[in-house]
């Protein structure tokens, strides 16, 4: 079954040309026919439609779709940058498009922000008295249609929600990537969209940590006070608990960020206790474990072989149930001060899907300036990124295996 998709690209000065069929790295023959049209107007501003690229690929070109539920704003979050970095290359906004676009594109991945599916812009929401968290402010039908289209290899014109102006801007073209990440408040809210996801993650920041982070971020801004920051979190809480929080139970992996237990009465939010809650029985996903899978382990790596500074590092691993699902929980409390602490911890973790020894440490060092690089948030985000890469490789290799089996039968 061949799937043909046509997109228009930037205009190139050339005569007609047809390119030869190329074999992609996945082994599928992809016939690419490129038509160039000589511009009939000389030096004019005439908008010739430009060259049309029609790509026909034999076999499935299904995109792997990952859902990420996060409250921190789209595509610019640290998690996204770590995730795209695992696949290689830096993710950037589409070149030549709307400068306020929320989309990030790298070689392998495209990250789209679910805020783009707001049905009400900022003024509309103010009039109706609803927050962005409310499902009434979002067009789930369009979200489902477009994610389904991209997943089956069809490019879509996705609207843009401009966070600066609060308006809905003209749409941008999104071409199906190898990996599509949908990031936002409601990736798992709609059941149809949920079924399209190959893997889903929920980033659960506790209120104390949220408050501490917001203070550090927003206090510099004029107009904000401690009270206004606290009030803004509190005011959103009812909608958050009603619409966003329930998505936790559908997630394949939850990264829970809590205040540390190592320092009594800590309210700075610098040392964190992070729990990676991994659902059991998810296809193509094997949870990370410590020492002995399925058992309960408490581990303090600091001792004779490794010296850590205050407050140290504490690990915990064990099976549990989470909203009625069987899960394994890996927990880290504390922070890394030195490279050898990081590599020591990495060497004792199992099932982290690295390609070579030290890959987690290398990824963490590559982005040492990112927030969370010295604690469990960075560590678990990196590990989840590697698990997603592993999941992607399993899915694509199982697709190449299927046609072979069909010919054998």
């Amino acid at each position: 079954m061949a799937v043909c998709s046509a997109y228009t690209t930037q205009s190139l000065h050339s005569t007609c040309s047809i390119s030869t069929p190329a074999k992609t790295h996945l082994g599928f023959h992809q016939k690419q026919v490129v038509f160039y049209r000589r511009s009939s107007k000389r030096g004019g501003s005439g908008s010739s439609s430009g060259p049309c690229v029609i790509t026909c690929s034999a076999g499935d070109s299904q995109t792997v779709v990952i859902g990420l539920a996060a409250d921190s704003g789209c595509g610019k979050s640290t998690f996204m940058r770590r995730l795209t970095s695992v696949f290689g290359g830096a993710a950037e906004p589409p070149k030549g498009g709307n400068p306020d676009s929320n989309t990030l594109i790298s070689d392998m991945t495209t990250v789209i922000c679910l805020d783009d599916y707001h049905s009400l812009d900022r003024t509309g929401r103010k009039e109706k008295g609803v927050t962005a968290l409310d499902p009434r402010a979002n067009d789930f039908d369009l979200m489902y249609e477009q994610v389904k289209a991209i997943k089956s290899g069809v490019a879509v014109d996705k609207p843009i929600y401009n966070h600066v102006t609060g308006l809905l801007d003209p749409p941008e073209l999104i071409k199906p990537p190898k990996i599509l990440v949908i990031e936002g408040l409601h990736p798992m809210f709609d059941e149809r969209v949920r079924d399209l996801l190959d893997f889903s993650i929920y980033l659960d920041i506790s209120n104390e940590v949220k408050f501490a982070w917001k203070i550090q971020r927003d206090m510099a801004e004029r107009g904000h006070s401690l009270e206004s920051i606290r009030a803004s979190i509190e005011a959103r809480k009812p909608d958050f608990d009603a619409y966003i929080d329930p998505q936790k139970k559908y997630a394949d992996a939850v990264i829970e960020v809590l205040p540390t237990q190592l320092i009594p009465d800590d309210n700075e939010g610098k040392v964190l206790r992070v729990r990676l809650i991994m659902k059991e029985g998810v296809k193509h996903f094997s949870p990370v474990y410590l020492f002995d899978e399925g058992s309960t382990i408490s581990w303090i790596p600091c001792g004779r072989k490794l010296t850590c500074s205050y407050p140290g590092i504490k690990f915990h691993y064990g099976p549990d149930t989470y909203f009625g699902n069987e899960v394994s929980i890996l927990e880290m409390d504390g922070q890394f001060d030195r490279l050898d602490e990081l590599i020591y911890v990495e060497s004792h973790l199992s099932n982290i899907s690295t390609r070579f020894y030290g890959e987690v440490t290398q990824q963490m060092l590559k982005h040492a300036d990112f927030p969370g690089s010295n604690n469990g948030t960075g560590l678990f985000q990196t590990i989840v990124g590697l698990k997603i890469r592993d999941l992607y490789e399993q899915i694509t290799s199982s697709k190449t295996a299927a046609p072979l089996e069909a010919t054998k039968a």
Partner: protein
Amino acid sequence: MQVMKPVRAAPDSISEKVEKSVKEVQEACSDDPVSGECVAAWDEVKELSAAASHARDKKKDNDPLENYCKDNPKTDECRTYDNGSIIYIMTSFFVFGDEKFGVVLKLFLSC
């Protein structure tokens, strides 16, 4: 067909927007602190604060030379010359048990 959009006298920078939105909250919440209007006003504050912080980060990252060279690597200012290679080694040693010796070596050659 021409569509005329009314132009509001909007504040220029995002910081001013944030400040303005916090003031608007006072009005919206003065009647009823749990009304939809009040909550929507706080949501707007949150959204604008996030946009402001992203704008701050973007401004911090912007090195004009790097941005120019990303798009024009062949211009004189942006050419890089390969007089040798830069080797970046990250090593880490530690001992497993009594015998094993783990070494992590990363060689980074830039061309």
